[in-house]
């Protein structure tokens, strides 16, 4: 009696096990696939930003960074080759992206950003004193600053512009601002010297004085001792 009942019960439990094991496998695969898709999207986004930066700003990366991107690409291809997104491989890919590829891109972009924005920002500083649109100067400065972080470059503002575009626009705006002042070459050279803090008294030619008077900029310049 009991013996038979026990046997039956054991069989029923085994069947239940089978069913439950099957369901568990499907759920897990879906989750891994989603994770894989997410990683691929992240990788694609980085490559896309790089391509855009190159296009807009003639950005260049190191060979090492290129290598990390190629490695990442290989890892992702491996998953596709396997036909299944195993958790361990996904883990490795996530590690590679977050620990190698993105840090390299960020670091190099930071350096690049400083390089392309240093001169224009100094000029903006000088020109900003000559123009009356102070708000416009501030907006330019903010756009340039917004593009200093690689990881945020693809972020969009309310107008649908990415931060990379905003950076590019900012730099263009400074050039446009200088052209709007109608400066001759002497004056432009003088402003450059003033911006670089190496303008001498001898550089204040009659031409320069006339330009100052003409533009009513007498209060904007001072003479100081060399430090």
């Amino acid at each position, binding site marked *: 009696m009991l*013996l038979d009942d026990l046997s039956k019960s054991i069989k029923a*439990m085994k*069947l239940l096990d089978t069913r439950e094991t099957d369901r568990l496998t499907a759920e897990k695969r879906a989750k891994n696939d989603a994770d894989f898709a997410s990683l691929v999207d992240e*990788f694609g986004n980085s490559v896309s930003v*790089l391509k855009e930066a190159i296009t807009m700003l003639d950005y260049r990366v190191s060979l090492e960074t290129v290598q990390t991107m190629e490695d990442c690409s290989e890892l992702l291809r491996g998953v*596709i080759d396997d036909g299944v997104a195993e958790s361990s491989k996904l883990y490795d890919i996530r590690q590679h992206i977050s620990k190698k590829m993105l840090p390299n891109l960020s670091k190099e972009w930071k350096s690049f950003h400083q390089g392309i924005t240093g001169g224009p920002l100094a000029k903006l500083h000088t020109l900003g004193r000559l123009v009356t649109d102070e708000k416009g100067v501030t907006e330019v400065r903010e756009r340039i600053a917004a593009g200093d972080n690689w990881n945020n470059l693809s972020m969009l503002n309310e107008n649908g512009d990415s931060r990379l575009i905003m950076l590019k626009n900012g730099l263009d705006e400074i050039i446009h601002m200088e052209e709007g002042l109608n400066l001759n070459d002497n004056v432009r050279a003088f402003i450059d010297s003033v911006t670089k803090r190496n303008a001498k008294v001898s550089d204040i030619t009659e031409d320069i004085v006339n330009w100052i008077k003409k533009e009513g900029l007498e209060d904007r310049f001072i003479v100081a001792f060399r430090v």
Partner: protein
Amino acid sequence: MNREIAKRRYMDVFRPDVMHSSHGDFLATHVPMKKLYVTQQLTDHAEVPEQEKKNPKTEEEVYERFMGEMEEDQFVLVIGDSGAGKSHLIRWIDTVHKMRKSEKEVVLPIRRADNTLKGTIRQLIDLPEVKSLPNKELYKKLLSAATSVPEKELKETIYYQFIIQITNDDGKAGDEESVRRINNVDRKHLIALLQNSLFKDRLMESDGPIDRIYGKFAENKSNEVNDTVAEFKDEDFEIDSEFRNKLLLGADDKARKIADKLIDNNEFVCAVKEYINRFVEKVIQRCAGLEPGDLANVIEEIRRELFRQGKTLTILMEDITSASGVDDSLLDALLTDKIEYPEKQMCRINAIVGATDGYYREKFKTNTKGRIHNFVYVPDDLFGGNKKGLLEFFARYLNTISLDPKDIQQWVDQGKGEMETYPVHVVTIGDGWGEYKLGDKHINLFPFTQNSIMFLYDKQDIAKRNPRSLMRDIIETYVKESIEQLEDFPVHRPTFYPSNPELQNAIYNNINYDDSTKLRLACFMYVWGDGTLQTYEKKGVRYVAGLPENVYKELGLPVIDGNKVVVPTEEPSVPESTGSSSPEGARVPAREKENEQVMIALQEVDKWIDNKDYKLSIGATTKSVKALNNARKNINTFLFNSIDWQSEGVSNNAVQKVKNQDKFLVAFDRQTQKSDSVITLPASIESRGIIEAFVRWSEVGKESWNFNNSTDYLLRVQKWGDSIKPTLVKAILHYDDKKSDYFSFAVAAEFYRLILNGYCKNYQDPHNLSPELLLRKNQAVSGENGHTKSWNDLLRIVNGSDGAEARTCVLQYYNLVQGDVVHSINYEFDALAFNKAVKGVIKTGLHYETVDLQLDDPVKKRRLYSEYLKKIIDRLDIVVNDEKAMLALQLANIEKSVSLDDLESTTDIEDLIDEIGKFYSQAQKSHISIAIHYDLSKINYCKRNVEQIVKAINVAKQVAQTRDTIESLLLLSRDPLVCLKPFVELLNLAAADLEKTNSEVEMRMKTYKTENPDLGDTPYSRQQQIIENCAKTIEEVREHHVVG
């Protein structure tokens, strides 16, 4: 002795109050006093200074010193213990002084009379000198004071006088200069207590304080000299809780309060006593109608009158306490020196006053003491060191009681009381008893001999060696016996130490005499005779122990044969003093100092033998004789230790059983304690010998036989021990004619213990049990088992102290002690006897009914085994039935899940347990909730015990078929439940979990039937596209946009 005269006379002569005996008797019995101390001052303790003791005076010297012609006033205090002879001395002085005094000397003897104040006053008013007092008012007052008042009325008056005095007091008891002796609250409470009828009855009791005061004031109701002091004592106010409870019923609050305060408060009791005693004198004066100075006035009036007549006064007052109540002022009058009051014109006074030293110490005021400069001290031991005086004292009294008063009066009148004419009585009985030579006269000493006088004097307590005590305690006692009970003489037998046991053995071993005769004869020969077995013939008369044959015959005593010796030389005359405190001359053997405890014990034993109604007091109370109590214990110990019980076929264990319950093998006939002893010692001389031996062993030998003549005692004891041995042996093994069988009960009980502990699992029939089982270690099993509560309760009982005791008995009963019985620790086991006895028990199949047990065995230590076995068998049916019921329940539970027919082999059970294991294992894998019941250890336990489970099922089936309790018990001792219970629990659990599992599985399976999972075919195409695009971009970057 002249028996006829003595019979009439002896009571008159022996009256202690010498002032009432006739003048002739007084002279005839008077022995000159030779040991009197004269001093001018006493020590602080009212004793004579040692220096003065070196010069004792004779009565004549005292007379010369104080009774000669003199001009100055004189006061002499004759002091000494009660009965020492103070009155006798004063009386002798009076007698002599009347003959020798001058014409102008007036002698006023104030005798003790009945020793009351009224008696004293009556004497005074009879004196011609007082009758002729010019102060008639004073005389009338005395007459009134002497008037008799009914006792009850006078006692009531005394009692209420105390209340009146205390009521009118302020707590200072009349002494205004002193502080309050009790405070006013206590005083008022005391009055309330005295007014309480219950307390009054107590104080008015015979011998109570009011009776004592009445006795000193109005009437001495006894013939004894009343030496008690008229005062309250501590015990009159000592209240116990019992009396206090009685008081609670009716007394008012004040009386209750002081009663409470008096309980266990000695200091307060003493204060109250002293306070109330301050009123005694005043109360007596009030009751007599006298003023404090009345007697002093009488003395003063007499002195003035005699002065007028040109005479002098001598006052001889025997006892100052006979003036209780006015004694203080009387002393003051007697001490008044005429020189100090010349204007009063008083004659010279010479006062000789007697007082006990205690009264002097306690009651004389300090200033009175300071005014006394002449003391005559009469010592207690008047005859100390004066054998001749002692014998003469006895001889004169014995002679006087045998003389016709007319002959004595004639001697006084015509012979002037001179020694030459001293009359000697005609002997009608007691010839040959010995004589005392007084001058040239021979006085017969019957019923004494010189030996007996010296012996009895020596035996007399030192404090009672004064003349009055000697006369009352010794002379009167034996004279009375000789007159009234000569056939039993001596009835009062002093104890003696038979330093020469030859005589005692000769008497005690004579089978022709009864015990009473033996005791009388021994006492008589040792005390009256010389205590030897020597015999000789002198002038045709045979002497034994120094006494002629006819003496024995007069007393109806047998004359024993002695060792013939030559006739001793003529007895030397009685020597004078040797300086010792005891009169010398008594022979050594009978007087050798006896151990006090031996003496007391033998005295008690002699009374017991002699008096058929006398109960021997042997308990542990204060009244009992300690040495007898010890003797009984020591006899017991001796018998237990000295008998070789094993040789007599008695197990040492059986002896110890009796011994350890403090059973007394021997008791005394007519002893005060109840006893279930084996032997009762009859009240006989033989018993006396046994008791004496053990008393001496304890008291003299200090628990050894190391004392004089111990071998005789030991031999006697051993012979006696041998004679009673068969009785004792039988008694150790039997009671009520039944053989004590406690060993069998211990064995049966031990078998039950073994069965219950599981040591007999291999037996089915109790008849097959073996004796060897009992000899194994068989320690109590204390681990877990599957038995029922009732089984385990019984198991605890048998594994307890009773069980241990029974086991010890089983193992030790047949131990044969090797060597010394008492101290040996080496044993040999009598296996043959053991096996035989145990087989006897096995033969019964351990079936014992209550009637088979010996629950009435008087020896508790043996009875315990019967009681223990009864405790077991009373519980057996309950235990077996409970176990059977539990087994039946287990089988029924199994059958709910599995048919018992399917569990016939170990494989069947193994398969079932395995399947259960698999079931739980799968449940765990499948996350079924009942998996928490998965207990691998339980499953493994069952697996390990598969064989036992099969056996247990079989035992359970077998037990169900067995009707016999013991056989069932044996089967059940295999503890089938211990395996069966876990197995059944497992089955029950599995069965219950099975249902739950099936239900849960069904529920979960339903989910899968509705599910349709959509998994997709190409999941990575989009990602592949992105990656490919990225790869192209990167490749381009590598080619064109790399730094450097």
